[in-house]
């Protein structure tokens, strides 16, 4: 079977992000970028499926600016076989990404698409679900375990109340949660091999997708600075404050 993995280039999780002075977004100039950590988990899962002999080919796809090539090279160094970049300077919202991925899926016909459950930049948590809906495919989101057998997949999902196991038919869109696996770091020989692996570039126009944003960002602001807590002398005061000030009881 063939697995398609979507990877997003985001501000590195170690970077302390700053809001742009004109409040239009987050500062990304001269900021270290890397692969969305949930997508690393998706790549790892796909590569493990290949190592186990379950998957025959792993294709990594990224959508966005030219520099997403670096993110794809990371995926290739982790073990993906080839990569596709849908290159655009346009702002991509989840629906546009899902539509683009649908067209890539139509070209590639994978049996499974793996994505991170969300990206750590906008935390939208929408792309996987939208893609499954657009394709009319089964979905297994927030996966902490994926077992494949006989054209079916058993996905253990991390839900609010604990774990839920769903059994679905392939083809499948799965989104990865934190506990699915621990991604490997690329070895030096694999980083060197990744430079020679094929990386194809497409454009939204070639795929016939209108990526114009449907949502408008009005304003991006820093969260308010947290106020220091207070100490109360006794339980009675605490209860009183919870009732009259915090109004939670």
């Amino acid at each position: 079977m063939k697995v398609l993995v979507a990877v997003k280039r985001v501000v590195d999780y170690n970077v302390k992000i700053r809001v742009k002075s004109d409040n239009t977004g987050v500062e990304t100039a001269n900021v270290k970028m890397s692969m969305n950590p949930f997508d690393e988990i998706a790549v790892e899962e796909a590569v493990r499926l290949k190592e186990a002999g379950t998957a025959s080919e792993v294709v990594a796809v990224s959508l966005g600016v030219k520099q997403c090539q670096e993110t794809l090279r990371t995926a290739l160094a982790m073990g993906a076989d080839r990569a596709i970049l849908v290159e655009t300077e346009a702002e991509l919202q989840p629906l546009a990404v899902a539509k683009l991925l649908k067209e890539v899926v139509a070209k590639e016909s994978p049996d499974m698409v793996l994505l991170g459950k969300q990206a750590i930049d906008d935390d939208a948590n929408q792309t996987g679900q939208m893609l499954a809906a657009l394709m009319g495919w089964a979905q297994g989101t927030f996966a902490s375990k994926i077992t494949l057998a006989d054209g079916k997949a058993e996905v253990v999902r991390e839900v609010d109340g604990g774990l839920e196991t769903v059994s679905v038919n392939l083809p499948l869109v799965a989104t990865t949660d934190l506990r699915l696996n621990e991604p490997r770091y690329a070895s030096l020989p694999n980083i060197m091999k990744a430079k020679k692996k094929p990386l194809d570039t497409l454009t939204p126009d070639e795929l016939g997708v209108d990526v114009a944003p449907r949502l408008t960002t009005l304003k991006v602001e820093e969260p308010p600075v947290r106020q220091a807590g207070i100490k109360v002398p006794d339980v009675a005061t605490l209860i009183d404050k919870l009732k009259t000030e915090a109004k939670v009881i």
Partner: protein
Amino acid sequence: MSDIPRLVEAHDDIRDAVRKLCADFPGPYWRWLDRERAYPRDFVAALTEAGYLAALIPEEYGGSGLPLSAAAAILEEIQRAGCNGAACHAQMYVMGTVLRHGSEEQKRRWLPEVASGRLRLQAFAVTEPTSGTDTTSLSTTAVRDGDGYVVNGQKVWTSRAEHSDLMLLLARTTPRDQVKKRTDGLSVFLVDMREVKGKGLSIQPIPTMMNHNTTELFFEDMRIGADCLVGEEGKGFRYILDGMNAERILIAAECVGDARWFIEKAVTYANERVVFGRPIGQNQGIQFPLARAHAQSEAAALMVDSALARYEAGVPCGAQANMAKMLASEAAWAAGEAAIQTHGGFGFAEEYDIERKFRETRLYQVAPISTNLILSYLAEHVLGLPRSY
């Protein structure tokens, strides 16, 4: 990440991957090793397994065949992440002597083993108690005897000898009074220490102010085969010199990494630590030493690049390699000094890792060559002043 063109490849992909690996070996790991004076086995195993220590070994012998700038990037990132590459950096450059001067048979026999990590080649026995940088006056002898050599003498400051399988040894094969030039008559041997330990070779650890796993070695009628000889007999001094530029450049890159670690750590602290109602980083007394150390480390990094570019182009780089090592070790020291001062009392607390790195980076103003000898080299060979010693 900068878009400014560099003199050598930046190797950003390799740097990213090294940082990820290093993230698995945070401060508490190094503090524990430091307390126990233990060798960072797991860290070195992870680096070996991921192929980093074989970066310079040609692909035909199982390595990645990368240029020196890749090794410099790897070591700089290790230091910049707060780890310590001294535990294994020699694995990168010691093999260069075998690669350049060894026979095809030696290369085929040993390099793939080193590349795979099955064997470690990171002991380099040159310095002796009575001959430091005055290498040609060393007194360890290797005397031809039948189908091999018999070695007698002593070496000191041989780092990692207890954590290496193979050792590169420099010994005198022709007595000094029988050679025309004092640089003649020295030979290099690649010794399989597993075969001679306890049979002519004994290793004595030297406790030092940091966790460096250095030792002294004693040779008493240590018998080695004639096939241990690297290159031609009597030409060993030149072979060793060939490798020294690479060593100096790589250690300079490590110092740049140290400097950057100190500065990043101190800047973060200076922005967070509030005294008298404002972050201490707002005080010029805190800012200026950090800004100066930053300028010093950036200048040193440029000199490292210059040395790397010359090395990779195959043109003489002795002056640049020496200057890079001197400037980078001093930049790291200035940054360490600024970092400890910025942290005040906390700089002395083990849990901030600064005191550990402070002790570790001090070494590089002394080893592998001291600052004074670099200055003497520059004065004599670059400026054309009379030899001072």
